[in-house]
């Protein structure tokens, strides 16, 4: 037997030539002959004897004869039924085996990490992204999938990968980091402008059975792994015809000795048949069908075909809802590397899983898994699959698996839901579930990771010491790139890996003061207000026919008198904002919401001005996107491109959008949002982050929802914190949501907003009137077209100063 007598040879190109066998996969020394059909001697013998008497009438045989005749008839009938069953089973088996054996779920990837000189990139981020993409630190980075760091110099042996815009070969990438940026970059020793790492796998779009696998051909499987599989599971694989009588006898003896079912006598072929066509039912009938189909399979297909199918089919573990099938995917799942990078011990561990993927799970039961690994290693050595030296090296190594928290080990259900929603416009669900498509998305794992860490820490801090709040708080968040609308991170729950209610997309909650920037934008656009316009913050009572009297209050339950408009926004004053909004007109405010892309039903009630509108965090992000992007509204985008399993591009997507608000007015509004951070309700941000930044806190009635929406020069983030039961919380937006934003941006990197050079500084008096040159008042920014050219200049500053001096002198006298 090839596997037992020596180390198997790896097949070259023809999988059927595996193990140095004939094209049918058998060793050269065991030529295959056509199996003989089962003989039916009894039936044919009786026929011959009964029908061979010439014209002489048959002699009566009595009751015994009748019984015999009936038995013959039944035998013939049974043979016909058996033949029909065989034909049926044969056709069934061939149909599936020769057609597409498996449905392949779409594989979803994060964005690739682009590397170029000048790029913002910390050592921490690069190290983390390499780890998440299953790179291993090895001195000299000798093979794809390894890296080495010496100070600020990194050498990364990037794997080959088929991106959505084409395949790229493996490269040795070297780079230096300096001051948090990429300083220089070399690829294969030559200066290079741009290179990208392959993206992380972040999940799949699975059919109902949730099977996931990565298909490989036999010649891609290490020969040691094949050898380990055969010597462990089916030593006679290359000699039997689908069933092994020796194996069955061995199993029966073991079971009799144990007094229970402890060992199966199934060959690899039978196991494959069972996995492919039959249930887990333990019955003789099922076993019979399994044996027949195994024989039929061996009749039709080569050993190489069968082995290749087995390698791809076998169940090897579970990751949440995802069933891990095949050695290729199991290799990535347990060890974070492709099969070609496995060492002998890791191969043995995977083969050990065949007996019981859950029982021998190396992540959950490392001791059991190691014992099983060692047994497989021993079999490999004893059967010549590995040498004694290899065995000694492997057996001494501890069993280590990859980190369960790394990206390839988990999924991002909230983000995936959004991906599916976008793809639904162009693809059928069954294609996504079955065709093995590759989906390249916009998810930035570094930002996602930062967001998850910040949310987890912040919710724990909020609940600390408040027993009634323990595990009651929930959160949802969206982070997008402001110039492209790409969704970079999405949190649908405080448990990021949870496949449940996606609050970021589906939870519609009152947005509170996050509505105010829209009201202020409408006011600025109206031409009747500027940031210096005085607003009355005294108590307000609005009566409307058929509706209860509306009496809003400030968060601190106080009135602030007459305040400049910018103070009203910075301090998030409700009374002054409501008065201003009513002057602007509710219809105009509704129109502003519409222009910012809100498609929900918006009732023109006064409470709209203070955020009674209910939106999801994703909808809020879409609404704020034009405010961060100079009035340019872009659809939220999660997908960059889609390729077939073979890498052929099916779709690629690029940013698009439309100018929905005058950029000057948006720039004007940004001043107010910067003041919120500079000296208003979000001033806490600048205790940790460099400004300017723009943002707005929000808290709904009775503190049921805490919000923060803010942006730097690159990203917009919207954070919500609340309770699923809609109960009140002892927090406002600044206390609950803002810290998550702050921690996320502190870790992911913040890029302060650039100055708005197009704005003109104008002196404004206490009534909000623009004053001319030399006048005393407060400076506020204005768009150039809003500057009043007729404003009368006052005396020069020098005159003013001398006038003041004269006045002081007179007072002294």
């Amino acid at each position, binding site marked *: 037997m090839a596997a037992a007598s020596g180390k198997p040879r790896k097949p070259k190109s023809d999988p059927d030539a595996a193990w140095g066998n004939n094209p049918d996969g058998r060793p050269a020394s065991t030529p295959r002959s056509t199996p003989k059909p089962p003989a039916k001697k009894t039936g044919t013998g009786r026929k011959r004897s009964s029908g061979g008497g010439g014209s002489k009438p048959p002699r009566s045989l009595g009751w015994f004869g009748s019984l015999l005749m009936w038995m013959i008839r039944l035998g013939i009938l049974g043979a016909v039924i058996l033949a029909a069953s065989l034909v049926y089973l044969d056709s069934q088996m061939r149909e599936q085996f020769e057609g597409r054996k498996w449905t392949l779920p779409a594989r979803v990837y994060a964005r690739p990490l682009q590397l170029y000189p000048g*790029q913002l990139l910390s050592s921490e981020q690069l190290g983390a992204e390499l780890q998440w993409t299953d790179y291993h630190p090895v001195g000299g980075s000798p093979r794809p999938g390894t890296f080495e760091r010496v100070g600020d110099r990194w050498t990364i042996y990037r794997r080959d990968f088929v991106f959505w*815009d084409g395949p790229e070969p493996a490269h040795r990438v070297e780079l230096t980091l300096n001051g948090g940026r990429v300083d220089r970059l070399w690829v294969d020793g030559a200066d290079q*402008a741009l290179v990208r790492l392959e993206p992380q796998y972040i999940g799949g779009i699975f059919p109902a059975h949730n099977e996931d696998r990565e298909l490989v051909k036999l010649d891609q499987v290490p020969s040691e792994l094949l050898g380990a599989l055969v010597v462990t599971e089916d030593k006679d694989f290359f000699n039997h015809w689908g069933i092994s009588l020796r194996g069955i006898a061995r199993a029966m003896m073991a079971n009799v000795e144990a007094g229970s079912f402890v060992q199966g006598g199934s060959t690899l072929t039978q196991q494959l048949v069972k996995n492919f066509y039959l249930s887990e039912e333990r019955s003789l009938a099922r076993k019979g069908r399994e044996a027949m189909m195994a024989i039929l399979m061996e009749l039709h297909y080569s050993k190489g075909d069968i082995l290749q199918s087995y390698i791809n089919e076998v169940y090897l573990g579970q990751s949440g809802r995802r069933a891990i099938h095949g050695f290729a995917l199991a290799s990535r799942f347990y060890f974070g590397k492709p099969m070609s990078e496995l060492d002998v011990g890791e191969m043995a561990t995977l083969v050990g899983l065949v007996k019981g993927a859950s029982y021998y799970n190396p992540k959950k039961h490392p001791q059991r898994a190691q014992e099983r690994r060692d047994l497989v290693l021993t079999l490999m050595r004893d059967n010549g699959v590995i040498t004694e030296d290899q065995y000694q090296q492997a057996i001494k190594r501890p069993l280590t698996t990859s980190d369960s928290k790394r990206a390839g080990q988990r999924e991002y259900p909230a983000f995936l839901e959004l991906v599916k929603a976008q793809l639904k416009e162009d693809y059928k669900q069954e294609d996504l579930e079955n065709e093995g498509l590759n989906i390249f998305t916009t998810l930035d794992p570094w930002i996602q990771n930062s967001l998850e860490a910040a949310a987890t820490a912040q919710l724990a801090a909020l609940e600390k010491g408040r027993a009634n709040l323990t595990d009651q708080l929930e959160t949802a968040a969206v982070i997008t790139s402001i110039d*492209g609308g790409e969704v970079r991170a999405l949190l649908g729950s405080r448990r990021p890996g949870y496949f449940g209610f996606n609050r970021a997309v589906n939870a519609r909650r009152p947005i509170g003061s996050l509505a105010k920037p829209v009201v202020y934008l409408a006011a600025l656009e109206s031409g009747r207000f500027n940031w210096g316009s005085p607003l009355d913050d005294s108590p307000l009572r609005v009566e409307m026919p058929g509706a209860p009297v509306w009496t809003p209050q400030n968060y601190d339950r106080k009135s602030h008198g007459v305040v400049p408009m910018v103070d009203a926004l910075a301090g998030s004053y409700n009374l002054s904002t409501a008065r201003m909004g009513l002057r602007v007109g509710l219809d105009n405010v509704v129109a502003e919401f519409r222009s910012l892309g809100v498609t929900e039903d918006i009732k023109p009630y006064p409470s709209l001005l203070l955020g009674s509108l209910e939106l999801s965090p994703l909808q809020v992000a879409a609404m704020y996107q034009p405010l961060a992007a100079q009035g*340019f509204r872009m659809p939220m985008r999660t997908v*960059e491109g889609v390729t077939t399993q073979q890498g052929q591009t099916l779709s690629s997507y*690029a*940013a698009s959008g439309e*100018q929905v608000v005058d950029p000057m007015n948006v720039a004007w509004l940004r001043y107010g949002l910067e003041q919120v951070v500079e000296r208003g309700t979000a001033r806490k941000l600048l205790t940790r982050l460099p400004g300017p930044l723009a943002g707005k806190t929000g808290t709904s009635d009775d503190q049921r929802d805490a919000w923060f929406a803010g942006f730097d020069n690159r990203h917009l983030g919207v954070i919500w914190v609340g309770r699923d039961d809609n109960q009140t919380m002892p927090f406002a937006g600044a206390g609950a949501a803002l810290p998550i934003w702050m921690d996320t941006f502190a870790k992911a990197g913040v890029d302060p907003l650039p100055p708005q050079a197009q704005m003109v500084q104008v002196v404004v008096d206490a009534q909000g009137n623009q004053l001319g040159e030399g006048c005393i008042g407060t400076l506020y920014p204005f768009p150039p077209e809003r500057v009043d050219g007729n404003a009368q200049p006052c005396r020069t500053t020098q005159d003013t100063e001398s006038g003041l001096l004269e006045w002081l002198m007179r007072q002294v006298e």
Partner: protein
Amino acid sequence: MNRLTVTGAMLALALLVTGCAPAAVRTSSDSMVTRPSLPSPKPPLANDSYSRVDNTAQAVPATVVEPVQLEAPEVLPEWNDALLVSLDQGNHHPAIQSLLQKAEQSRQQQNWSATLTWLDQARQIQPRNADVLYRQGWVLAQTERYSEAEQLLQRARMFSTDNSLTARILLLRSDCLQHLGRDSEADSVRREAARLDPSLLIG
């Protein structure tokens, strides 16, 4: 002199009555100076190389006996493909340059989808690079996605700090506007382009 003047006046009156007065005698307020109308929407960009100047030159009637003082016809620049010979022209950040080269290769193969993909990668590296947005707008226009192109070019114009580039962005945008049937806006944008870069009017 007086007699001559009277005679001349009578002759002129007679000629006027008979309708034979030369045009030069008419008062200046009578002169019918009209702005030549814009030509009909131009053919696809790939074949666009004609000049508006030639067309407007023919608007002056050739049969006038004595030249009248016509108001100068408004000559507006027009988008033509010579303004963007290749997607990788110009000086850019090396990473952007590398992506623009790939985009240009895809463009030469008429693979517009791939071209857009490369350009979008460049945009993600420098999201406010007017040069990149301009090229994205151009590709969208090539694929007759004029509305998207026009919007993207508005954004490109916002970030452009170079008059020459801004003028080209405006011309391309005007071309999109014209395809969208927004002719008066297109004219207005062309005027702005001409003001920013008068050299566009030459040739």
